[in-house]
């Protein structure tokens, strides 16, 4: 081995502290899938308490110690910890790292023909910062008082007076925010600067566009949360009162040690200023993946490609001015609520446009019902339900009854769980051959899809009825209320759905591990796709492309009239 950059790197440099975007992508993917599974386990435990309040949890009930589950009965404080951590883990440690960290890192540079990300070391740093954040979050389960238990939204004053777990949560969040910021700088620079010759912005696959907008959202929305996190840390550690008014009496004790003068609402503004764009961070890359998969499997160009891009940009922009629709119940006046309700109605339009474009793309296509396509297709109605049920929550008047009820839970889970997570599964089935050179087993894939689809709806559909009945979210035991007791049966159904969904993942897990070693070997371009990642070998070597490709056409040239095959890859000069 001669030369500076041809020597074989050590194992650690190659697989642990690697700077190769593909290795980092896989690291992100594996870590985030583990967290996703953990987050799901937390909710499966909570679902026991919800379905059978105060009853001893079978089998695993006695593993958690006296402070969490004495005699196998879950305590409210443990329930609250699980709830807060479920939200945090799913969003910040599971879904976003999968969408951006894993798929973004692995696929995006390949799709733009780049040898790597613009800042490979920064990329590594952002993974390890994420990893550290995850470790801190996990460790917080073991501190006195348990993990953070003030909800993933961490509203003060509750979070200001909460147990130590909250401080750990804040430190964990600071790590995760740092990771996202570094990542987003890297993504934007890579997409803008490292596109190969001929790959103009409007020849980019929609997925890359989605990643670009997402990165801008992360870049600009996360810092205010970081600021809010710093302020809350000051409140907790230095005794300041950014979020505390004067004259508080907690548990009968007058809080004389705090100066007062702060505002609990301030946190909500800073938090939702992040967290609303965060919603689009969760959905845009998912839409990007679904659009890719739909186009490939309908053998047809995406309908309204440009309209989709403009809608995405518009969504990104609008997402910064809708945050207060999470705060209609905070005593907001008519004028401000009218403004935010209006922006909320406006932001629904581009989502409708994107969804419509994807459905119309099916029209006059030749739809291949592959496993990734099934997940991508399922995304559409699920996202539609999630989007539609956002309407009653976006209008202040109907929000009065539905705010903070299970209706909200149903709404955003439809967007994120059968929506985004289905898109993630679609992505895994779709790009698995690129990453490993082997394909996942189809039959197991169909089984995985069918059961997941059924059970995920059984989990979330009843929540709309529960919400209508007025059952609040985050209740340890809803049967204390007459209106909660009346719909307890729905909770039971929901819970069984969740456990069955857990079982439905077994074929996937088996499939995943077996296929890595023993899956069917496939060609570099098994789906007959046009975008650049499929022109690289599977798996792509260090540096990605043997020769730097040049792009001659748009990303979705399928079924071009007169062409011999039904697809023309972007890097092919003239059609044969």
């Amino acid at each position, binding site marked *: 081995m001669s030369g500076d950059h041809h020597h074989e790197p050590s194992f650690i440099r190659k697989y642990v502290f690697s700077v190769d975007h593909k290795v980092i992508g896989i690291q992100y993917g594996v870590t985030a899938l583990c967290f996703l599974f953990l987050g799901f386990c937390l909710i499966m435990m909570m679902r026991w308490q919800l379905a059978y309040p105060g009853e001893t949890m079978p089998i695993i009930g006695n593993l958690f110690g006296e402070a969490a589950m004495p005699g196998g009965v879950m305590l409210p404080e443990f329930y609250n910890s699980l709830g807060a951590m479920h939200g945090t883990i799913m969003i910040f440690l599971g879904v976003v790292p999968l969408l951006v960290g894993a798929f973004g890192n692995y696929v995006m540079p390949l799709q733009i023909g780049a040898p790597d990300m613009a800042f490979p070391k920064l990329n590594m740093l952002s993974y390890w910062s994420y990893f550290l954040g995850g470790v801190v979050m996990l460790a917080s389960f073991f501190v006195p008082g348990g993990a953070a238990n003030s909800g993933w939204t961490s509203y003060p004053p509750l979070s200001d007076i909460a147990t130590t777990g909250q401080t750990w949560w804040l430190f964990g969040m600071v790590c995760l925010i740092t990771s996202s910021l570094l990542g987003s700088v890297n993504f934007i620079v890579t997409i803008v600067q490292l596109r190969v010759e001929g790959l103009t912005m409007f020849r980019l696959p929609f997925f890359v566009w989605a990643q670009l907008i997402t990165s801008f959202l992360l870049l600009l929305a996360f810092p205010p949360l970081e600021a809010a996190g710093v302020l809350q840390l000051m409140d907790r550690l230095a005794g300041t009162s950014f979020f505390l008014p004067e004259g508080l009496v907690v548990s009968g004790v007058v809080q004389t040690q705090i100066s007062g003068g702060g505002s609990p609402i301030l946190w909500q503004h800073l938090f939702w200023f992040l967290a609303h764009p965060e919603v689009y961070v969760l959905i845009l890359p998912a839409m990007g993946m679904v659009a890719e998969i739909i186009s490939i499997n309908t053998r047809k160009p995406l309908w309204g490609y440009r309209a989709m891009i403009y809608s995405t940009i518009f969504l990104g922009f609008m997402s910064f001015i809708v945050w207060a629709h999470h705060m209609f119940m905070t005593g907001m006046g008519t004028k401000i609520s009218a403004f935010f309700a209006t922006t909320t109605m406006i932001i629904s339009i581009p989502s409708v446009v994107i969804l419509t474009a994807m459905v119309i793309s099916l029209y006059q296509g030749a739809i291949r019902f592959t496993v990734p396509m099934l997940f991508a297709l399922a995304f559409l109605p699920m996202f539609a339900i999630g989007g539609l049920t956002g309407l009653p929550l976006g209008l202040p008047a109907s929000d009065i009854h539905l705010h903070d009820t299970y209706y909200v839970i149903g709404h955003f889970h439809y967007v994120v769980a059968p929506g985004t997570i289905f898109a993630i599964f679609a992505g895994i089935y779709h790009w698995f051959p690129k990453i490993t050179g082997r394909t996942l087993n189809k039959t197991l894939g169909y089984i995985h899809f069918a059961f997941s689809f059924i059970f995920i709806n059984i989990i979330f559909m009843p929540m709309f009825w529960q919400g209508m009945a007025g059952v609040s979210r985050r209740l340890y035991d809803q049967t*204390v209320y007459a*209106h909660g007791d009346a719909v307890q049966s729905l909770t039971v159904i929901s819970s069984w759905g969740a456990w069955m969904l857990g079982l439905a993942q077994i074929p996937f897990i088996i499939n995943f591990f077996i296929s890595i070693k023993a899956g069917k070997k496939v060609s570099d371009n098994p789906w007959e796709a046009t975008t650049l990642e499929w022109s690289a070998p599977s798996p792509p070597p260090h540096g990605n492309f043997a020769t730097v490709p040049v792009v001659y056409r748009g990303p979705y040239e399928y079924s071009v009239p007169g062409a011999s095959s039904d697809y023309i890859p972007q890097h092919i000069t003239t059609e044969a």
Partner: protein
Amino acid sequence: MNRSRIIGVATVIVVIVCMMAPTVVLGQTDGPVASGHIIDGDYGYGMPPNASKDGHNVDNLIHILHWFMLALFVAWGIFFVYCLMRFRARAGHRATYDPVKAKVSKYAEIGVAAFEAFLLIGLSMPIWAATKNEPPAKELATHVRVVAEQFQWNFHYPGTDGTFGRTAAAFVDTVDNPLGLDRSDPAAEDDVFATELHLPVNKPVICDLTSKDVIHSFFLPVMRVKQDVIPGMRIPVWFTPVKEGRYEVACAQLCGNNHYSMRAEMVIEDDASFATWLEEVGKVEEFDEDELD
């Protein structure tokens, strides 16, 4: 390609089954509510009963919205399913390269946008304005201070003089004086505390919401009233109960370990019973048992 067809049809069936699932649920559970009281009204899978004068506005909006959503989803779903069946890949079928030229989608989108505008401007804003802008006249209304704390709702009635006594954190005593009432204030003399919200029927109510510690949310399902209770702020809400009965007061914002226990009851009764209750609840009775623990 027979297989694809089977999968396509299976998908459709699964969608329908999933939509139906929650409606074909098991029968209602019929246990006594934790409090042991009988709570009035029929509770089930729909919205809770409405016991307030203006609550039906919110209900109407929610109903209209859901019919609209259902119409959209069904129309969209029919097109979606049609595409899946009609354009599945099969021998001799090839996708069309050129995009569809139909303008239907554009009109549909404009239609949706227009209807959303109507919902917002025509329905939501007037209701919101009514619940936020025009409080009932003070002299005609029952006035109650609602003070939330971990984990109890305290209701403070001004008594016959109609004026609330001064309160301050320094006077708080968890046993005798949960609200920190300044007993030296003459206005405080006839003030009454309760942990149950009693209100006269057919008379507007103004509740001034404050919190002693963290954020709570004052939720009266049967009145279609929900409002966050934020420490350091005094937020009024108002409504007019029109149906007598015993109902629930819920906390709708996570407020700590026992958030779920933060439940109170609300009794809507006629003027006479309300007056009697107000007399009774303020009375302090002597405890003369001499038990040893």
